[in-house]
């Protein structure tokens, strides 16, 4: 069992190299996109917001899934607990990366324009909520809550590794209960603030839930890809079996369906009501070139992953599953593009080179930070109360026999 308690760095020496290369890529990307900042500040901020929301979605989605697993248990969570923790520990960096949005908010959000508000009765009504100081205070509160949750859960997890104190499991459970509630509320209002208020007249009560579902899906897709990569290297190559991928595949399927359910519900209700304020959001998306993006989402954010993930073979085949997971991460980006970009280009579809470069840049920086966090701790939580029952059998006797169905 000694090798199980080695840090990831010792188990997989190439991690350091990957971290360095990703950081260089991120640096180059940042330099290139800074050039974009000089040409078109607004376009830069718009693409940056999209890229940022994807990375934040993976981070917060991992934090939330970790808390869900604390409460629900299950073997699926034991093998990804360490990647979950490492992803959640990228939150301080994500907090810093929010600064460009805070500084650029005047160019992103129409409601910050005093002239516009002065001539708009609805925006005057909303001014109580949509104003610069309150927006920033709220953002500070969200980051405080998220960082606090991530800090305590990770600190206790580290202590659990060292001391094997059983009371820590109980303490993490307690925090996770309230933590999930806090996550649900903060991310709802954060999505209203950062995304929904891009079109300040429009509103939809399901919006927060839609974003939560999207974050869960992004996090699961990322964790699946990470687990496939780790399962080919020690020590997880001795531990991960097809059934683990099967569980993750099922969870991804569930979240794909949830996303489709939320999106369709929102569309059907707004379409059938056909009220001017609400339908306008869909009008400039569906009656212009943006329609193609909508169809892409139906096909590749729902239909394709849904059909593939129904198959039992696909869920147990890491080579195939990792493709689905990466595909899902890409369509998550397209979904955020669909939520954000049409507000800036209402007359027709427009894709900027920054929409490609900035997600790659932020993604590389995020991944480098993730690897850095992963390296410092063992890849398996050997003192998780479930560890023995979930994985102990497998380690002792090899994988359990497969039965058909």
């Amino acid at each position, binding site marked *: 069992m000694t090798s199980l308690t080695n840090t990831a760095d010792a188990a997989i020496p190439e991690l350091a190299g990957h971290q360095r290369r990703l950081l260089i890529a991120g640096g180059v990307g940042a330099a290139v996109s800074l050039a974009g900042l000089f040409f078109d500040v607004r376009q830069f901020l718009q693409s940056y917001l999209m890229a940022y929301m994807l990375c934040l979605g993976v981070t917060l989605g991992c934090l939330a899934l970790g808390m869900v697993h604390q409460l629900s248990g299950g073997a699926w969570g034991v093998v990804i607990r360490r990647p979950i923790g490492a992803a959640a520990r990228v939150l301080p960096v994500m907090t810093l990366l929010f600064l460009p949005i805070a500084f650029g908010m005047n160019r992103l959000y129409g409601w910050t324009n005093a002239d516009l508000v002065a001539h708009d009765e609805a925006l005057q009504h909303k001014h109580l909520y949509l104003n610069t100081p309150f927006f920033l205070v709220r953002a500070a509160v969200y980051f405080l809550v998220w960082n606090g949750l991530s800090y305590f859960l990770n600190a206790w997890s580290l202590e659990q590794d060292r001391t094997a104190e059983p009371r820590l499991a109980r303490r993490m459970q307690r925090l996770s209960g309230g933590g999930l509630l806090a996550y649900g509320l903060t991310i709802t209002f954060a999505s209203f603030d950062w995304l929904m208020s891009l079109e300040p007249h429009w509103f939809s009560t399901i919006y927060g839930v839609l974003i939560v579902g999207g974050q869960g899906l992004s996090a699961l897709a990322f964790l699946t890809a990470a687990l496939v990569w780790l399962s080919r290297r020690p020590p997880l190559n001795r531990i991960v079996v097809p059934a683990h991928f099967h569980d993750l595949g099922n969870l991804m399927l569930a979240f794909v369906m949830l996303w489709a359910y939320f999106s369709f519900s929102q569309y059907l209700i707004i379409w059938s009501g056909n009220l001017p*304020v609400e339908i306008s959001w869909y009008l400039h998306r569906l009656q212009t070139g943006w329609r193609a993006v909508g169809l892409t989402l139906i096909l590749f954010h729902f239909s394709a992953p849904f059909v593939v993930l129904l198959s039992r073979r696909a869920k147990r085949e890491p080579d195939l599953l990792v493709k689905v997971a990466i595909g899902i991460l890409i369509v998550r980006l397209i979904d955020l593009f669909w939520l954000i970009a049409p507000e800036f280009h209402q007359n027709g579809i427009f894709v900027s080179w920054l929409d490609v470069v900035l997600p790659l840049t932020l993604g590389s920086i995020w991944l480098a930070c993730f690897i850095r966090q992963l390296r410092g701790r063992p890849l398996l939580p050997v003192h998780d109360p479930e560890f023995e*029952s979930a994985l102990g059998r497998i380690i002792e006797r090899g994988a359990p026999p497969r039965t058909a169905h």
Partner: protein
Amino acid sequence: MADSLQPVEDPSRAAAIRTPAVIAPGHTFGTVTDKISAIVLARKTPLGWYAGFGTAMFFTLLLLVSLTYLVLTGIGIWGNNIPIGWAFDITNFVWWIGIGHAGTLISAILLLLKQTWRTSINRFAEAMTLFAVACAAVFPVFHTGRPWLAYWLVPYPNTMNLWPQFRSPLIWDVFAVSTYATVSLLFWFVGLIPDLATLRDRSQSPVGRVIYGMLAMGWRGSAHHWHRYETAYLLLAGLATPLVVSVHTVVSFDFAVSIVPGWHTTIFPPYFVAGAIYSGFAMVLTLAIPIRAVYNLEDFITMRHLQNMAKVMLVTGLIVAYGYLTEAFIAWYSADRYEGFVPLNRMIGPYAFAYWALIFCNVVVPQALWLKRVRTSVPVLFIISLIVNVGMWLERFVIIVTSLHRDYLPSSWGLYSPTFWDWSTFVGTIGLFLSLLFLFLRFLPMISIFEMRTILPEARVGE
């Protein structure tokens, strides 16, 4: 699923987080079978059963009287009016359909999620689902005013060349609810077959042997039978899973696709589904707690079950509270005067008492479930479950009546108050529900015998 990574029971985790077992220690295959089948076959019917069944039948008769009078007179005997065309009838319909959701959730989703604690409660939760759907169906059918023409709701080629309006969620309701009833019935019956065979083999009376024998459909318990059975049961679970979501989603569309302020809001589908599961689990607790006390089933329906159900109630209750919060916030945020009026009218309008009672029952009281002391106290859980049942009924009443009674034009505002017949029909369906439940408890095994045996330590072959 067979290739689950999770063991049947998880002793290390259970110890670490100090949860009680799903079945009390000391039981064997024989004692489980004896204890459950004896309720139906051997034990004398308790006097309390006659008293309970008699009372329930009294209210069932009240339902029959109310419906007869309704058919003879017309739905004018109810308090419904213009603008409040939907009132008690639809409130009760949504309430009963919601209660039914726990059955499907427990039987299908918890089965697929490999939650072994579902085993001792799934049978009567499924029965409860069926009875609740039956009670629910009463209301829309009689609300049509001419229930003998209710078959017009079903699309079929006819000489009048008339078709239902397929764009209306009301017609989706017909499909959703009838599919739900069919699949729930099949699921329940298929799950019963091996136990019906046990009753056939153990029954002392010739009549019992014949009836249970016919219902058991020739079950012999061969390996072949079991193989087919497992496959069929899993497939039915898969089929039933989308129904947990679809039925109440369609019910929420009944409201949300309109443009009535207070109804037309995008959070309705997930929030209705969560509310349905919330009320369903509350009803399962309301029934399970007295049943386990009367029939001494504490060994099978353990504190673990009650605690888990309490947790599901807490989670779904929080989702429902989240729904109230976003609804109220967005109503203000929308800057639309009609939207903004809805929450204000609910809070300080003529039905304010119902709104605040609903907040108390659905949001305030269930917060006690955060405390382990509350989750482990049977009487407190029972009281909370009753309060949630009331709260979820009030929620539907508030959504339906307060949204309709004051919409866009103040000149067409109105008020609704229930008549005697509104109340008698509602109470009558509770009577019908309980009568069916009493019959079920008396004549069928209320806990799945063979599934209980699979969670015994004896069943862990090769571990």
